[in-house]
């Protein structure tokens, strides 16, 4: 401490200004190609949707359902696959590579819930699993619900008929 005060004026202060830090951090940041990330997201997301389409077609011809009726079992099946892959640790490895490609489909929603449930299992079934399952997925549900409510309210106020 004493040497520090004695040397004051001679040396540059150790802490950087926030502006210096920002430029410094930017230099050290690994270069991410936005284009390559987008290609990966496009391919992965597209393939997950093709898988969904295949499952939906399967339900439509197998159980003789209409496209709208088949949508719900399709989503449930995709969620089951996603939970299975999350348990095996495969989905998170895929997410490293695919970025938004595996996060945006409904499988990513299930992955966020399942991994939160597994991660907090040690804290108990109620406080850990029950309390943390929606830690990441909760924001999606909250904002979706609020947006749908506002839109519904606008329809009520202006007397627009529903779909």
């Amino acid at each position, binding site marked *: 401490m004493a040497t520090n005060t004695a040397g004051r004026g001679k040396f540059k202060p150790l802490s950087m200004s926030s502006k210096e830090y920002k430029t410094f951090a930017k230099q050290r940041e690994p270069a991410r190609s936005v284009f390559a990330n987008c290609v990966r997201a496009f391919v992965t997301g597209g393939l997950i949707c093709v898988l969904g389409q295949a499952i*939906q077609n399967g339900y439509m011809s197998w159980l003789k359902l209409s496209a709208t009726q088949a949508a719900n079992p399709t989503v449930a099946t995709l969620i089951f696959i996603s939970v299975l892959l999350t348990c095996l640790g495969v989905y998170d490895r895929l997410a490293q590579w695919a970025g938004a*490609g595996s996060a945006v489909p409904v499988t990513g929603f299930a992955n966020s819930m399942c991994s939160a449930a597994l991660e907090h299992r040690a804290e108990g079934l109620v406080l850990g699993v029950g309390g943390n399952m929606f830690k990441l997925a909760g924001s999606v549900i909250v904002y*979706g619900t609020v947006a749908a*409510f506002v839109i519904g309210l606008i329809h009520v106020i202006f007397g627009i008929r529903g779909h």
Partner: protein
Amino acid sequence: MQFVWAFVVGGGICVLGQLMFDVLRLTPAHTMSTLVVLGAIADALGWYEPLIEFAGAGATVPITSFGNALVHGALTELQNTGPIGVITGMFKVTSAGISAAIIFSFLAALVVRPKG
């Protein structure tokens, strides 16, 4: 052809999410919330149904369809039962996804030890 459009539209929505990650520097939670709200608005404007007609699972699998389903349930019930339908109908269409995710995740937490 159906598979091609499912691939292109589903992939396109994921690219939109990736651009929000990389260019706008949003966190995954912010990105997903924004996409859900976009899906809800798209359905309110009547754009999402034609997209589902056109792209099938390409439009129903991405998270935007969750917003679409919430609005769709709310507006359908609004028409059938009046203003209270906005509240009661909201989760009618989308309950399969949420219920399945809760049940499978809970069962997984019961039997699986986390990896990685």
